Structure formats: structure tokens, C-alpha cells
């Protein structure tokens, strides 16, 4: 025997509705079974609070006198897009400040607007008959705007991979700092409380569903960009009125050496129409799996180091490649719980009515990688193969001779089976010779060598050269065997020679 959304709304109106959070529902389904739980419970509230980069807001500033067509616009020095009529702009969460860089961005501007602070608007136009004014500089608060509507193209990932790093240096990512050599694991998502994990087939969720969005009542306006239901990575596009939001649930954030974003609090109420839906909302952290990816590899496809459940992630420690690694989240379970509790409270007080979606969300996968017609140049296409190497027990004198003979600046030092152990440069050798230092190569070589793989795109090699301020990288295969070298000269030739467009 099922219920309808209208029947549940009637219960909300007469105050007899039974609402629980998704975490509470897990225990209820366990004790009563899905059938019992469906009878007992009318609404399950979910919640998440995490960094959602694909967020932003449409702002309408009203017309100036004389009028201006805003062409370049900055709010607190953060650029907003103005290619829409005269005085509308879209400010995106990840746009960074022109004066403060990555520590302040669109996400912060949105937070400041929501908390009632004033922001500085600077804008210029080219001056036309309809819009003669060329410059405006003014201070505004959210009260001064006609509309301030949050529109987020991609929010509320059903689940997301966890991140770690096997490389030998800290990676500064949108998942926070990932320490070298499997130093930590960072995950995101609220697990059993996660909105889409509680209705993975979108039986009750779709276009038009009323939701909790940053403390206001917002709406799902469709599936999000990169919606990927087949991989349990569905997403939502949502909108809500910035003027009704609560700054406790909208926080601008900045990730060191990555950039800015916006923490969004989002909760979806799930009407328990039948026992199938009750069963779905009974999901526990132990049943939600995700993969741990290696962010040390700067490619689109990152190696999967293992599969874990949210229960394991939340335990504070997981095992990867035989090593105990500490875990922590970048999203906030504490605030996610507040979202689910606030939504529950609204429903109990009769302030929030449930909706039936006017159109469902697609369950077919549609995420494609970018088509790159320019082609992708790899290290192996550019490197010098079959270069000279040297053994660690060779004398410095002999090394000097080989460098002169071979006319190169870098000599990788390899073991008997050809594996990379170190590197010496002309500089190392001349210094040793000048100081009349005698001895073996291994005494003067650099042991911590930055290297690349033949299949890495050349842009990765260029970034490594720049980051470490060095001029060459040995190219090594999976067994660390040296198969070539790529130098900054090779790369600059490409740029100036126009070989790669």
C-alpha cells in the first residue's frame, strides 16, 4: 500500500507528519524492515555541505542614470560575466580576485552578499546612444539588487572519489593538500546523509523538486552538468533566492595554490511513498562505496588505488598498498547534519511542502571527455631517446670526460639494470673539478630526481621543469629504467618553431 505526495502534504498541514533524517532512517529500516519503515515514516531529510565549485549567482543591479551597458564588471575585484543585457551579471564561485589572487574569489563575494555586507562594484561600458555612461563605481548590498538568484550548474554529487597522492611532493588540489607518499586521504560527501545516495534511481527527485538550498527553499531545475548516473555519480542543477539564504550554509572558501570555491548546504526531502523508497533511504555508510584515486598523477584518468566505503573513510584511517593512511573530509558532516535537521524542522512546522517532479532525471550516462582536435603531444614524441648514462661507481674525472665527449649537460646515473638512481650535471662536475674533488659519481650526484613518463603530455613535463626550476627531466618507464631525456630547450623549440599548434 503506497502513499501519495498529496497525502503526505495533507499530514504536513495537519501536523501529523512523521519526519526523520536519513541517518535516523538507517536504524529504522534495520529494525522495522522496509515495509514497517514505509508505514511509520512519511519523509526522510538528507543533507550535504561541501565545496561545490560549479556554483554562482545571477545579479541584477538596476539601471544607472544615465544608463550603462556593463561590459567589464568587478565585484570586490572579482570579475563577473556580463554578456547578458545591460545590468545583469553572473558571478562564478571559482573566479579569483584580480588584486588578492587565489585567497579571495567569487565564492567569497557571494558569502559577503548573503551575510548583508557591502561589496564594491566597478564597471565600464563602451558608451552608446542607449547607454552613454562609461564608468560606474559604487557600493552595494544585497538589498540594493533587484534579483540575486543562485544558479548552480553542478551540485550534490551522489558520491565522489576519495583522493590521495603517491608522488614525492605535496599536491595542492581541490580536495585540499595531499601529502606526499600516501601521507593522507581526503574525501568528500556525507555518506548515508547524501541526497542522491538516498534516491539513486531518482524515483522522487527531478525537475521542480523543492529543496533546502543554503538556508532558503530552492528548486532542482534539472540534472547537473557531467551527470553520470551509471557510475553512481549523478549531479543536480539547482536554483534559489540568494536574498533568503543564511550565511551559515553558504561559505566562500580558498584552497591553497588551487583557487576559490563555494561551500553549499543542500538538502532534499524524500517522500516515503512505498517500501522500495524506504529501502533506498535505509542506506548506511557501509553500503556506499567509492574509489581512492591517486592525484599524484596529473591526468584525466587517475589510477585507482582501492575501493572503500564511507564507513571506512569516516573511521579516520584506511589501508592503501599495505600502509595505514589517515583520512579526513573536506566537506562538513557537522553542517550537513544541520541541513538535514533544519529541513526536518521546516516540514514538521508545516513551513515546507513536498513536490512531485514535473520531469525525471536521466538515468543514462552521458559524460564524455573533451575532444581535443589539436592532438596531444607526449613526452615520448619530443624526448631524446637512447641518451648516455653513467654508473654510480665511475670516477668524477671519467664522468667529466664523457660529458665533454657527448656534449650534453645532464647525465642520468643508473644501476646495473638501468634503473634511475640519480643525476649529475655539467655544473656538478665542474664544481667538483674546480674544488679538486676526487671520488665517484655517487658522491656528487643529486639523488632526488624529478622524472617523467614517456606517455605524460609535454605540458606535465613543462610544469615540472618550472616548478622545480630545473632544465631537464630523465624519462623513465614503469620499471624506472631510463629511456631518454627531455630538456627545457626541447620544449622551447616547440613553442618558437611552431611545430605544435
Amino acid at each position: 500500500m503506497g502513499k501519495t505526495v498529496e497525502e503526505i502534504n495533507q499530514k504536513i498541514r495537519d501536523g501529523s507528519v512523521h519526519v526523520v533524517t536519513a541517518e535516523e532512517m538507517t536504524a529504522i529500516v534495520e529494525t522495522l524492515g522496509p515495509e514497517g519503515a514505509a508505514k511509520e515514516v512519511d519523509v526522510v531529510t538528507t543533507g550535504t555541505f561541501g565545496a561545490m565549485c560549479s556554483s554562482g549567482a545571477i545579479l541584477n543591479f538596476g539601471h544607472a542614470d544615465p544608463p550603462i551597458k556593463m561590459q567589464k564588471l568587478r565585484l570586490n575585484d572579482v570579475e563577473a560575466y556580463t554578456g547578458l543585457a545591460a545590468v545583469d551579471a553572473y558571478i562564478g564561485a571559482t573566479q579569483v580576485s584580480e588584486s588578492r589572487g587565489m585567497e579571495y574569489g567569487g565564492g567569497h563575494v557571494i558569502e559577503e552578499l548573503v551575510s548583508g555586507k557591502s561589496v564594491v562594484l566597478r564597471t565600464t561600458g563602451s558608451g552608446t546612444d542607449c547607454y552613454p555612461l562609461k564608468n560606474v563605481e559604487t557600493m552595494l548590498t544585497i538589498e540594493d539588487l533587484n534579483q540575486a538568484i543562485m544558479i548552480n550548474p553542478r551540485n550534490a554529487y551522489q558520491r565522489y572519489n576519495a583522493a590521495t597522492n603517491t608522488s614525492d611532493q605535496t599536491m595542492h588540489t581541490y580536495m585540499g593538500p595531499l601529502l606526499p607518499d600516501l601521507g593522507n586521504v581526503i574525501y568528500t560527501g556525507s555518506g548515508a546523509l547524501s541526497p542522491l545516495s538516498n534516491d539513486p534511481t531518482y524515483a522522487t527527485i527531478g525537475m521542480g523538486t523543492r529543496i533546502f538550498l543554503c538556508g532558503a527553499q530552492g528548486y532542482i531545475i534539472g540534472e547537473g552538468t557531467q551527470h553520470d548516473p551509471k557510475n553512481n555519480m549523478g549531479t543536480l542543477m539547482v536554483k534559489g533566492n540568494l536574498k533568503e539564504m543564511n550565511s551559515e550554509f553558504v561559505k566562500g572558501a580558498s584552497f591553497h595554490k588551487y583557487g576559490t570555491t563555494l561551500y553549499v548546504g543542500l538538502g532534499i526531502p524524500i517522500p516515503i511513498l512505498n517500501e522500495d523508497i524506504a529501502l533506498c533511504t535505509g542506506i548506511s555508510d557501509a553500503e556506499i562505496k567509492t574509489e581512492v584515486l591517486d592525484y599524484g598523477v596529473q591526468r584525466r584518468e587517475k589510477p585507482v588505488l582501492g575501493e572503500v566505503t564511507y564507513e571506512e573513510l569516516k573511521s579516520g584511517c584506511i589501508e592503501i598498498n599495505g600502509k595505514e593512511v589517515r583520512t579526513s573530509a573536506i566537506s562538513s558532516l557537522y553542517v550537513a547534519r544541520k541541513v538535514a535537521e533544519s529541513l526536518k524542522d521546516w516540514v514538521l512546522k508545516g513551513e515546507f511542502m513536498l513536490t512531485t517532479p514535473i520531469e525525471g532525471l536521466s538515468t543514462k550516462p552521458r559524460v564524455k571527455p573533451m575532444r581535443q582536435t589539436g592532438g596531444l603531444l607526449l613526452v615520448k614524441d619530443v624526448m631524446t631517446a637512447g641518451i648516455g648514462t653513467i654508473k654510480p661507481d665511475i670516477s668524477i674525472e671519467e664522468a667529466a670526460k664523457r660529458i665533454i665527449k657527448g656534449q650534453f649537460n645532464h647525465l642520468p646515473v643508473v644501476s646495473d639494470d638501468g634503473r634511475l638512481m640519480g643525476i649529475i650535471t655539467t655544473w656538478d662536475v665542474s664544481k667538483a673539478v674546480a674544488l679538486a674533488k676526487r671520488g665517484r659519481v655517487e658522491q656528487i650526484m643529486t639523488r632526488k630526481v624529478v622524472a617523467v613518463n614517456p606517455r605524460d603530455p609535454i605540458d606535465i613535463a613543462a610544469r615540472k621543469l618550472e616548478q622545480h626550476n630545473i632544465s631537464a627531466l630523465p624519462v623513465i618507464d614503469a620499471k624506472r629504467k631510463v629511456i631518454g631525456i627531455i630538456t627545457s630547450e626541447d620544449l622551447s623549440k616547440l613553442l618558437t618553431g611552431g611545430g605544435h599548434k
Partner: protein
Amino acid sequence: MKIILCFNSQIIKKPLIAEVILETGALVNINKATIDITGGELIINVPDEDAKKVIKSFKSRGVDIITLEKPIVRTDEECIHCGVCISVCPTNVFRYEADGSVSMDHKECIQCGACITACPHNALKLSR
């Protein structure tokens, strides 16, 4: 207790730490040391019960002392309780409570600074 020791360039060459340890018998642990031509700065950790005599002993040798009651401070209104700080801190200063909030145990902090840049909402600062 954490104590910052500030040396000027005149006394930096003397084995002051060894002298203080021998004099007080306290178990002094060095957490951080920065030394250059203008002088040096060390953060040490000493058992609370020995703190008084260690401070006195350093002072008598011309070392300036700053005690760190709270080596790391958090602006609670700015904390969104994500927990990024938890897995980057080498000394386990932070942890999740049962309600999901992030709590901290200042005493363990060695002022490495890792959490300061890691915090997405700029809630943490090292104190002096």
C-alpha cells in the same frame, strides 16, 4: 608546555640548551628551530611541572621567553568543521567529535604551519 626561546646573536654560540637541561634535569623537547645571523628562535616543549624552573634558567642566561598557552588558535565562527586540518597535522591536534564537529587539543601543536594553509575558511592562526 610550549615555550618560544629568542636568542640574540651574542649568545647564540653558547650551548645554552644543554646547560639548562643539565641544571634543571627537565626533559626538553625541541619542536622547531630557526637560526640565522641575527639570532635564533626555538620552540621547545617541557613538562608543565618543570616549566617554571626551565624558564628561570633560560632567563638567567639572557634568553627572551614567550610562553605559548595556545600555540594554535581557531576563530570558531569561521570554522566550517570540515576536518581538512585533521589529516595534515603531524601531531594529531584535531579530531572529529561524535556530532561531526572538529575539536582541538592545542597542547600537541608544534607550530609547523601545515593546517594554516590547508584550512579552506581561514580559521586558523599560529599565536605568539
